[in-house]
């Protein structure tokens, strides 16, 4: 075995950092899924009749749908009756302040480096923390509400702002959109809701932190962000889960809605447990993320750094309906060991002069498979649409795979579409050059990989960029072939 392969072995066998669990008393639904489960969840949340009906409709549709087989991933079939669909840390009837939150919970998030006590928080980030199925705390709420910004858990939004939820829930991702979105619509338990009123520029980053704790549960959260005319918000999402031998399902739906001149910037650092180095365990991350640029000159920008999960299936997309609207997708997807990722985006150009930009950087190591799947669709009416796609793949070692599946449909001949793709390996020359300047192999790979992903990492807000860089280095240092 060559030296570089040894280093690859050592580094890639590095343990997952967030693999611990805590003992939280949980309130759970019985295992399995039927109409009763849907009613149980809805009743637990004290939901209005219309929402229960909406869930049931989704459930009935889901029963008739079949799991998609087109993604370039393989996994044993999921037994949907062997999952707990609702698990909530037990809490006192009503939480008035953070002082009443279970100290175990606060400790959990502190361990993750997220302090829920506001005075300790980095100024400039408001957090909604979701553990298993429910949101446990939202910080900086009052300060935001002075500006008319609503930022709260999904359940709270259903109670406090039913008119907004009724209007926008499912408006971007309809309940029958796909198998996992339908499942989520039936059993989603919590998530975040955010509304930015007209002309308001949200003064701080809003952030949701997802954590799966309980065993055998699935996490099905929903995020809905509505940006009214001329408003702006930057939103961050982070996630971790304990190490477990069995696979756990995470099927989320994220809907973004921008009106005239509004902008949403959505950043994700996804670090779900990827499974061990033999491919045992890990999260199945089947997520539907979509944004609707409804108004003219609106803009949606997705940035994702995907390092975790046994399987990732996700395509954050933009529907460019408003004239002159803009969609962006920046992605770094890293797979190692036996991880599989099939991720990319869809840019649907409907309005005139719409523009989209795709920058995808895949990095595969170990025995992993990494696929980019992206669609650019220019509709008849979308004159002067522009798209530029750039898909780069970086391979480490000789047992992994990188795949690219671009789909381009153009129905208007004034469109201009560009697609660039490269595949490369980290060169021995590059490594040797670094070694010869006194930089060890681990640091060299971290430098090269971060350089490769720089264009995407630069899109992330400052605190996130630092975390993402560390995460990339941790997952991949030394993986040279």
């Amino acid at each position, binding site marked *: 075995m060559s030296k570089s392969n040894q280093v690859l072995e050592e580094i890639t066998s590095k343990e997952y950092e967030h693999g611990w669990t805590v003992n939280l008393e949980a309130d759970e639904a019985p295992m399995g899924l039927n109409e009763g489960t849907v009613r149980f969840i809805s009743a637990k949340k004290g939901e209005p009749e219309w929402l229960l009906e909406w869930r049931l409709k989704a459930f009935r549709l889901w029963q008739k749908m079949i799991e998609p087989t087109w993604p370039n991933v393989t996994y044993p079939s999921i037994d949907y009756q062997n999952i707990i669909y609702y698990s909530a840390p037990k809490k006192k009837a009503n939480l008035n302040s953070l002082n009443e939150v279970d100290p175990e919970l606060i400790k959990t998030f502190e361990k993750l480096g997220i302090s829920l006590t506001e005075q300790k928080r980095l100024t400039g980030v408001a957090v909604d923390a979701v553990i298993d199925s429910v949101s446990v705390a939202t910080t900086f709420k009052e300060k935001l509400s002075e500006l008319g910004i609503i930022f709260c858990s999904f359940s709270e939004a259903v109670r406090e702002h039913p008119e907004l939820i009724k209007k926008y829930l499912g408006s971007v991702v309809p309940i029958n959109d796909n198998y996992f979105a339908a499942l989520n619509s039936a059993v989603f338990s919590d998530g975040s809701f955010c509304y930015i009123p007209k002309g308001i520029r949200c003064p701080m980053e809003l952030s949701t932190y997802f954590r799966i704790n309980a065993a055998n549960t699935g996490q099905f959260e929903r995020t809905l962000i509505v940006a009214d005319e001329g408003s702006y918000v930057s939103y961050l999402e982070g996630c971790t889960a304990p190490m477990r031998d069995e696979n756990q399902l995470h099927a989320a739906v994220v809907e973004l809605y921008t009106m005239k001149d509004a902008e949403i910037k959505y950043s994700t650092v996804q670090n779900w447990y990827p499974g061990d180095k033999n491919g045992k365990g890990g999260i199945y991350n089947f997520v539907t993320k979509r944004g609707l640029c409804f108004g003219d000159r609106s803009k949606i920008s997705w940035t994702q750094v995907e390092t975790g999960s046994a399987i990732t299936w996700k395509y954050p997309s933009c529907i460019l309906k408003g004239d002159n609207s803009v969609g962006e997708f920046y992605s770094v997807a890293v797979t190692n060991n036996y991880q599989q990722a099939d991720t990319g985006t869809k840019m649907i150009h409907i309005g005139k002069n719409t523009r989209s930009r795709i920058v995808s950087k895949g990095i595969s190591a170990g025995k992993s498979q990494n696929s980019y799947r992206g669609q650019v669709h220019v509709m008849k009416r979308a004159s002067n649409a522009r798209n530029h796609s750039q898909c780069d793949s970086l391979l480490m070692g000789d047992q992994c795979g990188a795949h690219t599946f671009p789909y381009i449909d153009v129905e208007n001949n004034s469109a201009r579409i560009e697609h660039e793709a490269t595949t490369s390996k980290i060169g*021995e020359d590059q490594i*040797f050059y670094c*070694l010869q300047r*006194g*930089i060890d192999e681990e*640091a060299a790979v971290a*430098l*090269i990989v971060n350089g490769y992903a720089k264009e995407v990492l630069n899109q992330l807000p400052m605190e996130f960029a630092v975390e993402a860089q560390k995460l990339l280095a941790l997952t991949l240092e030394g993986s040279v072939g």
Partner: protein
Amino acid sequence: MGPNGSGKSTLASVLAGREDFEVTQGTVDFLGKNLLDLSPEDRAREGIFMAFQYPVEIPGVSTINFMKSAINQIRTYRGQQVLDAVSFLQLMKEKMKLVEIDQSLLSRSLNEGFREVKRNVMKFFRWPCSNPSSLSLMRQTRD
């Protein structure tokens, strides 16, 4: 020095510790240590500096970032204190004056898009910064 094909590059590569070569016998004594016992990065930290005729490009990695990693790893190896951002920049400024290069080059990606002359200037810039005790220059001729 020597004619083409006489083994200058091979010798330099062997001394620097390129994996492509296997040393079957002998020792290389360098300031009291046997180089062959050391990994390539430790040889560099001991003071072996090899100037590449065609330095590789590393896209997205700025020269300044690269230099900082290199210098601090060398300093740690030599038991010196790691330089903080301020003193590092100061050092850079001094050395830049020495070889008369422009500050804007520091934030450019490593060797990317440099013409040969510039690459060579940058190479001689990196050399005094890492404070080596020996320098081997390789001048290969292109066919």
